[in-house]
């Protein structure tokens, strides 16, 4: 089979898999609210529902299309999802999609720098610890990472805010900007406001990936080809940078890409602590106010985002590890 044809077949296969995954997740997303006990309209109206007469409830149901057969609802929902149309928010009277676009942008502003900084930190510190296994530096870094990894992020974030914002007053308590600046000063203001949240998210990202990098190095150092590299008389530096780190790379890059999804959920907590208007606060508010269309839309967006990150991880793994890359070229599934 030609390489191009094999690669095309591989990607077609992958696309099919992701497509099926997406349909399943969309269906679950459709089913969960409907499978829940109780009437969605009563949930929606909360305590007011007891005072509303039946006719009005029926009208509301008709307005949301809930009086129609379930298969019709499903088809309409799927068609809407295909157009990324989830209707209107019940509480905010805005199109769900517009709401999500705005909030998603700010979540990305929060997580992109965190992923970049955290990943770089993890790579450098993981290498330092991995190559000096058992040393004081290694034990210190590993200890801190395990502590961070097991520490609830909301607690950590609140402690940091209490110390640096409340007591020391070095940073703002929350919000994305003070809202009085424009142009370059506005960007600086955002950077100032995002410093603590990005630092906290970076630290969590770094802690997790640090452990992976360190363990990956330990494992690779024990491989026979590292012994052979030593027998060739290559210096420790060449062995570490060329032979070991080159092997850490595929795993590192794919974990980074996969972590995009987890970062969004991590950001959720941080956004709430710092009152940042991102996806996290949007989901949180929607849960609190039972804004189902927004919740459904948000979940679909996150699903697509996570699937895209997974796909990116697959592709990058294939590029950095020729063994995986070759199986892509032959069109073989892995």
């Amino acid at each position: 089979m030609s390489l191009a044809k094999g690669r095309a077949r591989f990607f077609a296969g992958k696309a099919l898999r992701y497509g099926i995954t997406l349909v399943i997740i969309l269906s679950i997303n459709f089913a969960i609210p409907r499978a829940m006990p109780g009437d969605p309209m009563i949930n929606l109206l909360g305590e007011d529902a007891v005072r509303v007469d039946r006719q009005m409830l029926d009208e509301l149901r008709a307005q949301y299309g809930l009086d129609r057969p379930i298969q019709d609802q499903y088809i309409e929902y799927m068609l809407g999802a295909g157009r990324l149309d989830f209707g209107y928010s019940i509480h905010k009277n805005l199109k769900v999609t517009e709401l999500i676009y705005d909030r998603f942008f700010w979540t990305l502003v929060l997580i992109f720098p965190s992923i970049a900084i955290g990943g770089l930190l993890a790579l450098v510190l993981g290498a330092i610890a991995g190559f000096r296994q058992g040393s004081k530096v290694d034990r210190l870094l590993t200890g801190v990472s395990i502590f961070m990894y097991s520490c609830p992020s909301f607690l950590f974030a609140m402690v940091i805010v209490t110390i640096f914002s409340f007591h020391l007053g070095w940073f703002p308590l929350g919000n994305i900007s003070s809202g009085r600046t424009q142009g370059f000063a506005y960007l600086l203001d955002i950077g100032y406001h995002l410093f603590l949240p990005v630092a906290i998210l970076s630290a969590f990202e770094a802690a997790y990936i640090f452990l992976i990098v360190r363990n990956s190095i330990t494992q690779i150092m024990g491989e026979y080809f590292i012994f052979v590299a030593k027998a060739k008389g290559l210096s420790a530096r060449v062995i570490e940078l060329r032979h070991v780190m080159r092997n850490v790379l595929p795993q590192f890059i794919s974990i980074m890409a996969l972590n995009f999804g987890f970062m969004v959920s991590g950001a959720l907590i941080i956004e709430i602590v710092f009152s940042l208007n991102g996806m996290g606060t949007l989901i949180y508010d929607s849960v609190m106010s039972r804004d189902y269309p927004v919740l459904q839309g948000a979940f679909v967006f996150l699903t697509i985002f996570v699937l895209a990150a997974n796909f990116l991880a697959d592709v990058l793994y294939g590029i950095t590890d020729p063994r995986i890359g070759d199986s892509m070229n032959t069109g073989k599934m892995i």
Partner: protein
Amino acid sequence: MSLLKVRDLSVTFDTLQGPFKAIEGIDLDMEELDTLAIVGESGCGKSVLGHATMRLLDDIAVVRGSVIYRGREVYAMSQKELLEMRGKAISLVPQSPSASFNPVIRIGKQITELIEKAGVAHGREAEERALSYLDYVGFSDPHAIFDSYPHRMSGGMCERALIAMSTSTEPDLIIADEPTKGLDALSRKNILDMLQRMTAGSSLIMITHDLKAAAMCKRVAVMYSGEIVEIGPTRVVLEHPAHQYTRGLIDAQPSKGMKPIPGRHNISHKSEGCRFRNRCELVQSECVRHPLLREIEEGHMVRCHYA
């Protein structure tokens, strides 16, 4: 001056179960363009001996005795001298060919890095050299192998590429660790012919459990339980073996009827005396005393009281 002189070399591994003696009291001499086969079954310490010669053992290995390469004590060398020696003066053809190459680096790059490290050639010239060595070991398309990754190649192809790599720096001494392991009869013959051709300008220590492979060397040393039990010119040792273990090895070959040596190889030889005595058919009262390696004829030494 001899090329390599090993004197009273012993290696002990510190394990959780206590110290484990892998090799003990090894003496070897290699001249320029000399060839020596080290034979013995798995666990006899032959690979440890090869690695100890290049000072390649882990920190858990306690090495005693001396290894003198061209008058210089290997175990007194600085890290820099050691790195210079490896791959250039003494080159290893490692065992497990498929696991010996880094899976994410192209074969050509892995050969070129050794040529450059050894200072034999640089840049484009080093690549040309790598290509010509791939050609010497019989690849019909050296460029394809140069650009290939290890997983695309068979074990036999990796073995050939390893031999190309290890010989590309024209080392004084090549230590080939089980070069015919896991190969079928035809590949084995090809590899041996090629190894002989490629190492013609070097001294060779071939570690093997394959007596057919050993036959291409001038001398052969037989190891049992960490000791050399017999050493001498290949023809003499293989045709007129003096040690009962050597006889057992010869009779265990498929061509000689595959007669197994009775008993089991006791790796943790705690007892005194001859280490082979619990398996030896000729055991006598004197065997409780540890025999010394003694010369029974010119250049032929054996570790047995009764040989």
